[in-house]
């Protein structure tokens, strides 16, 4: 038999990919070491965060699975940046680590057309230059039209515990060494990255009473636009700090650190440094914050967030016990660093298909990213596009102005990566538009067209969009005139002075004004859904900025429409700077707009490229 889509790897990228392609009706196999242990959280037990929370909402709006699992497994919900503006508000939830994996297995087992298979996908089957499946470690062939690789840290994974090294992608689990050899033999550009994780501690050995508590939001907000059940806060987190003794213990062990003895060659993430890095690079800082995060409700393990390390276990134990509340802490599993291979994502098309091998898709840490959410977003895009390929349809690409997912994919394929890539809100030039509150407004229609979202959900959002337009119209036409009663009302609501007739739209634009007060000005609030009021309030307050961004987007879109033919020969292009030529060849941009975003490319290079493309289009033979 032949599958439509074979997904290799059962992490966050692989699960999302398999869920998407099977949901789109493709016969899908998910091949992983242990199909009863999917979507494991190798690092911190939390989903979401700044920019990442937006990604989770987008995945949900497109019919992905992450938000649903995170809601069901969630035990502590928080909206980050709640006191700041709507564009940077980001949901985050602590998860019950075991529940997360268990719920993912439950959901995927119920997905039609999806087989969960046990085995190590160790090489790609290629016949007459065409990809036709994978083979496992024992040499069994699994035939498939398309393959999605999501090996994560398992690809050539090596763990470092102090100066001791163990092959593997996660503690106690062996690596995918053969697959790494296979990709290298096929000529993929592999590089080495590094990440790390802290020791896990026995909760019963921690003195919680002495620590500051961090509570979840009440009421907690779910990730999913259609949560299966109300979410609940079930635990609280705690905060403690390192001190001078901690730092002394760590510095004393640096000679046995694989990071500082040159053993680790892979590049680590700057936004997630190990505790030895923090102390070494910021010697003036006398104390570092640590969040103590329970890994579950009935779980006796906590995750000390902020002290990831690859120091030897005895040094770990010594420094941990200098920390208030952790004086008697027992290590359940030591922290470690892991090095793994990634493949240069510039070798991918924006729909995450390999330029080197048709029908091969890649997602997650293999593309140089870090983070469960970044992995899942790529898995979703790879799964959707593998399914579209099987159906013979054109690829699904999200633009940078449509979704953080689009920013993520474009950054990867255009800029490549030199360190583990993490998404930031600042990565999006249109972040005022890409908010967690409007992911369904932006994307649910696409999800519906792909067959991932039920029609009634899509229709509901369309209805809200129409209502928002109507309400905005009403706010423009309803004019508030100065009078004793309106002056009193303005004073009561803290809106300042009213000196001349003012459209209600402008009243709403005043900083303290809220949409829920519009009934005080004669608006019938019962006509409008809370989601409509929320969107109208945000868009009215941001209007000038949103309009400016839309104008820029419309201009940029013209250059995004200028396609560069796939067969364009950069070597034959005349007048091109050699450095620019190499960059274009590396990335093979799909459009002039993408070409202009390649780092180190100048306006004149784009001019020359465009002139050459025009020439090619007119006379492909001569060019």
């Amino acid at each position: 038999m032949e599958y439509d889509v074979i997904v290799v790897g059962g992490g966050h990228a692989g699960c999302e990919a398999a869920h998407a392609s099977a949901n789109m009706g493709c016969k899908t196999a998910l091949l992983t070491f242990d199909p009863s242990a999917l979507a494991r959280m190798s690092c911190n037990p939390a989903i979401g965060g700044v920019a990442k929370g937006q990604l989770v909402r987008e995945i949900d709006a497109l019919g992905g699975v992450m938000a649903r699992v995170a809601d069901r497994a969630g035990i502590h919900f928080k909206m980050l940046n709640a006191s700041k503006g709507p564009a940077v508000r980001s949901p985050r939830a602590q998860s019950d680590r075991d529940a997360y994996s268990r719920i993912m297995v439950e959901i995927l087992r119920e997905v039609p057309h999806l087989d969960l298979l046990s085995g190590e996908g160790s090489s790609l089957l290629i016949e007459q230059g065409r990809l036709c499946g994978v083979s496992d470690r024992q040499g069994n062939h699994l035939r498939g039209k398309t393959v999605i690789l999501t090996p994560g840290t398992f690809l050539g994974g090596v763990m470092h515990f102090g100066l001791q090294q163990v092959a593997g992608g996660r503690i106690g689990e062996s690596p995918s060494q053969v697959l790494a050899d296979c990709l290298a033999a096929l000529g993929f550009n592999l590089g080495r990255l590094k990440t790390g994780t802290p020791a896990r501690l026995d909760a019963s050995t921690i003195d919680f009473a002495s620590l500051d508590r961090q509570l979840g939001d009440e009421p907690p907000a779910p990730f999913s636009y259609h949560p299966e059940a109300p979410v609940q806060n079930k635990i609280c987190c705690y905060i403690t700090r390192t001190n001078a003794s901690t730092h002394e213990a760590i510095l004393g062990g640096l000679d046995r650190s694989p990071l500082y003895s040159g053993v680790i060659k892979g590049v680590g993430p700057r936004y997630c440094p190990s505790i030895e890095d923090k102390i070494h690079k910021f010697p003036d800082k006398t104390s570092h914050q640590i969040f103590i995060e329970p890994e579950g409700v009935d779980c006796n393990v906590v995750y000390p967030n902020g002290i990831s390390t690859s120091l030897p276990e005895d040094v770990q134990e010594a420094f941990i016990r200098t920390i208030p509340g952790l004086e008697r802490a027992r290590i359940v599993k030591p922290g470690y660093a892991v090095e793994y291979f990634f493949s240069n994502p510039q070798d991918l098309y924006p729909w995450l298909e390999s330029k080197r091998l048709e029908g091969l898709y890649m997602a997650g840490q293999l593309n140089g990213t870090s983070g469960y959410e970044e992995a899942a977003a790529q898995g979703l895009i790879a799964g959707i596009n593998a399914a579209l390929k099987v159906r013979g349809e054109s690829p699904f690409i999200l633009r940078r102005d449509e979704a953080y997912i689009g920013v993520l994919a474009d950054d990867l394929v255009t800029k490549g990566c030199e360190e583990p890539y993490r998404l930031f809100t600042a990565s999006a030039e249109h972040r005022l538009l890409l908010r967690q509150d409007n992911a369904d407004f932006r994307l649910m229609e696409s999800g519906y067209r792909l067959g991932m979202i039920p029609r009634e959900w899509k229709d509901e959002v369309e209805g809200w969009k129409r209502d928002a337009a109507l309400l905005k119209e009403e706010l423009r036409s309803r004019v508030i005139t100065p009078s004793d009663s309106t002056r009193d009302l303005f004073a009561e609501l803290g809106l300042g002075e009213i000196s001349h007739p003012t459209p209600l739209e402008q009243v709403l634009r005043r900083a303290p004004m809220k949409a829920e007060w519009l009934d005080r000005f004669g608006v019938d609030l019962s006509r409008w859904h809370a989601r409509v009021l929320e969107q109208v309030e945000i868009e009215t307050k941001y209007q000038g900025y949103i309009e400016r961004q839309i104008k820029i987007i419309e201009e940029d879109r013209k250059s995004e429409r200028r396609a560069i033919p796939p067969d364009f020969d950069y070597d034959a292009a005349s007048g091109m700077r050699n450095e620019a030529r190499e960059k274009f060849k590396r990335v093979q941009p799909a459009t002039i707009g993408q070409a202009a975003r390649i780092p180190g490319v100048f306006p004149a290079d784009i001019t020359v490229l465009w002139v050459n493309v025009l020439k090619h289009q007119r006379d492909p033979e001569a060019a």
Partner: protein
Amino acid sequence: MTDPAIYLREDDVAALATPPGRAAIAVLRLTGPGVIALAGRVFHPASALSHPRRMVYGALIDPRNGETIDRVMAAAFPAPNSYTGENMAEIHCHGGEAVVRAALELLYREGARPAEPGEFTFRAVRHGKMDLARAEAVGSLIESRSRLARSMSLRMLEGAFSEALAELREAVTGVMVELETQLEFPDEAMEEALGRELKAQTAVLAARAEALERRAVREQRFEQGVIAVLAGRPNVGKSSLFNRLIGRERAIVTPHAGTTRDSIEASIELAGRPLTLIDTAGLRETREEIEAIGVERSRRLLSESHLVMLVFEAGEGLCEEERRLLAEIERERPETRVLLVANKNDLVSAAPAVEPRWPVVSASAKTPGGVDALLKALESAVTELAPVDEDGAFLVGERQARRLAELIERLRRADAMVGEGVPLEVAAEELRAALDAIAELDGSGVAPDIMTAIFSRFCIGK
């Protein structure tokens, strides 16, 4: 370096097609889908533009207030029969600096963007209006232009502008780093106790940008320079002084009154500034036709000059007519400066008694050091008329002046927002736009890597 994608836009752009500076006419050129409609909004009669490629006479009128800016010739070139292949329009106005600036500002306000270097030609290529052989040259043409532009600004600005911009970029980046740290890393930002003094920092940014603008000298205005007119009764020695000042025998000098009939111009450099010196016909009632025209022209030149050097004989002092002229200048043109030149001081011993309101300098065209004092006085007058902070000033072109204005506007708005309940990410938008403006101004094209700055400055990450 401007944003690469700007060359790929299809919006409306305008530029002065003729060299900047004084000229009989100046040609303003527009290209883009909306430019014929745009021209119709400012040119009357607009209907005359419906004849393709026909030059028509009319008026350039500001639609806001109906004010006529200039009498002009205009023509519309509908696509594809134009230089760029797009809709184009040309407006031929008078070549005065004020006219050109007012006209360009009107076009920009009506929606045109100042053209980038080589943009008209690039559009011509894009629309297939040039053959492929020439097309190949366009890439290097644009490149060489920007190289020239870069070396020019280097020479002109002696690095002052770039350094000032680099300092400002660093300052804006510093504020941006704090702001973005708060947005991206709320858990850590709390710990770093950031943003307490954000308001003070944004205020400093706005003030620094304003200081930068005060140092910016508009290239066109500067290069036009100071216009100084030598005026006075016939035969007081204006032409002799003129020749001495410009250092060559340009004006004909005879002992006869009324030798200079027409005005003579020469450009010299004084105190590092361009100075246009104009010798005029002596002012007197005359029945001689040519001389009368010359006298009339002298009066007109007086009204256009920045500096009037009123020359009289040291032995005689000012006559009634000269006093009248001075009073007229004071009344009608208060910005015009006057320098009283007591000439032929070699013939008298005592300093003349004259009008105390204006500086007096005595001179002689006959003695070796006779014009030294005059040159010195002229120098200080020119220095005051074209004030330039010589240690810090730099020349900016029209496009740079606009970017600088935008930069200041952005920083002022960011400052107005911080601490006023406006979400921080909106202030960040303004700062980001300010950084873009700086990148366009100094040609670096390098957006500062905010994330790298955050990681090097703060210990971030759990």
